[in-house]
């Protein structure tokens, strides 16, 4: 190392990466002006930020594992960024679908088979299609003015970058602190067969994962499932009740939005 230059620590790398990420987001977010230079500069800075995070990330042990994890997380993060910077909301929704497939890949790498598939089916298959329906119903032709400007893009990008920097620094410190995320050695400590069976039943990576997840959900968390069912029913009834208020309420609301006065 050169004596005149301070050594490049992971903390400095993270700081540089989040600074580049904030600048990139600010350049890419809609600000009313459209310049080719800002777009390219934003893309280059975004690539630099992502490379910084890849360099500071920890190695997983094997080239195949790293390649798979890197691919799916890159898909998730890059399409997530494209979701928030794209002008057109329809393209936003499509980028979000791609981000969802990346997230599903990350969940599969983490061993959550059911959740990876459920993310695709429930989010991309149901919720996102609902968003697209609403967009096609409500989107005026052409780019609206509110799609071409943002509220305080610089401040928001800085806020997001500061949050990301603090989170990744504290996540990076976890490996230095042996007490922070130690796993209780339950599988090693058990000796009798019943306790060993309990350990297998709780392990997400053993065989029959989906069946045991269902057992856990409908056994230990049965009350929460019932409450979630009630919540779905309430949301359904609430949505219908808001729609079915009638024409008089619509007229009243129109007057309110125009003049800012409630009758």
């Amino acid at each position: 190392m050169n004596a005149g230059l301070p050594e490049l620590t992971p903390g400095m790398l993270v700081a540089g990466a989040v600074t580049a990420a904030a600048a990139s987001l600010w350049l890419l977010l809609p600000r009313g002006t459209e310049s080719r230079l800002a777009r390219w500069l934003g893309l280059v800075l975004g690539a630099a930020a992502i490379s910084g995070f890849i360099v500071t990330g920890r190695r997983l042990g094997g080239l195949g594992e790293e390649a798979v994890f890197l691919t799916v997380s890159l898909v998730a993060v890059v399409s997530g960024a494209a979701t928030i910077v794209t002008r057109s909301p329809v393209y936003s929704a499509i980028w979000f679908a791609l981000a969802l497939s990346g997230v599903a890949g990350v969940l599969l790498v983490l061993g959550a088979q059911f959740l990876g598939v459920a993310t695709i089916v429930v989010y991309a298959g149901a919720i996102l299609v609902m968003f697209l329906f609403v967009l096609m119903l409500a989107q005026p032709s052409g780019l609206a003015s509110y799609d071409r400007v943002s509220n305080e893009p610089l401040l928001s990008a800085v806020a997001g970058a500061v949050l990301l920097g603090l989170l990744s620094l504290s996540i990076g410190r976890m490996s230095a602190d042996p007490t922070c995320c130690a796993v209780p050695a339950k599988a090693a400590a058990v000796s009798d067969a019943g306790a060993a069976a309990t350990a297998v039943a709780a392990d997400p990576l053993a065989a029959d994962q989906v069946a045991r997840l269902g057992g856990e959900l409908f056994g230990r968390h049965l009350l929460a499932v019932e409450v979630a069912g009630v919540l779905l029913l309430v949301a359904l009834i609430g949505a219908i009740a808001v729609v079915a208020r009638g024409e008089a309420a619509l007229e009243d609301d129109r007057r309110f939005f125009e003049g800012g006065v409630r009758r």
Partner: protein
Amino acid sequence: MTPLVAATSTALLQNALVVGAMLFALGLVGILTRRNLIVMFLSAELMLQGISVSLVAWSRHHGDFGGHVLVIFVLTVAACEAAVALVFVLQAFARTGRLDVAAWQALREATLARSVDHALPASDAEPQRWPRLSTAGVLPPGAEEPSLEREHV
């Protein structure tokens, strides 16, 4: 299925947590700064995705199903949220003709000033050219070519 990485790998936990933090921060920036209501809700869903990744990473690290079960409830609540939120978005569109979050400033406090948009320069985005299918068969009598084309989506 054999796991791709060893079960108690702290490196996998840390990397997945950073990915979750990135998704959360991106969603935060989106919901703070974008003005289209639909894009704001997409950003909120992006934040939920970041949370899901973190929860499953911890679940994997600790070797139990707690995180998985929480993510299932996150999915449920997200579905409810989307249903109710889209109803409000559609109702607001029916009243104002805009998907702009600033249309809701009629709800502000009486002492706050109304925010005014600055004039925007003209967009230099080129109109999109959509592929067209050749007409098959005969148009029924009385029907004209419908012009449902949009310049942009």
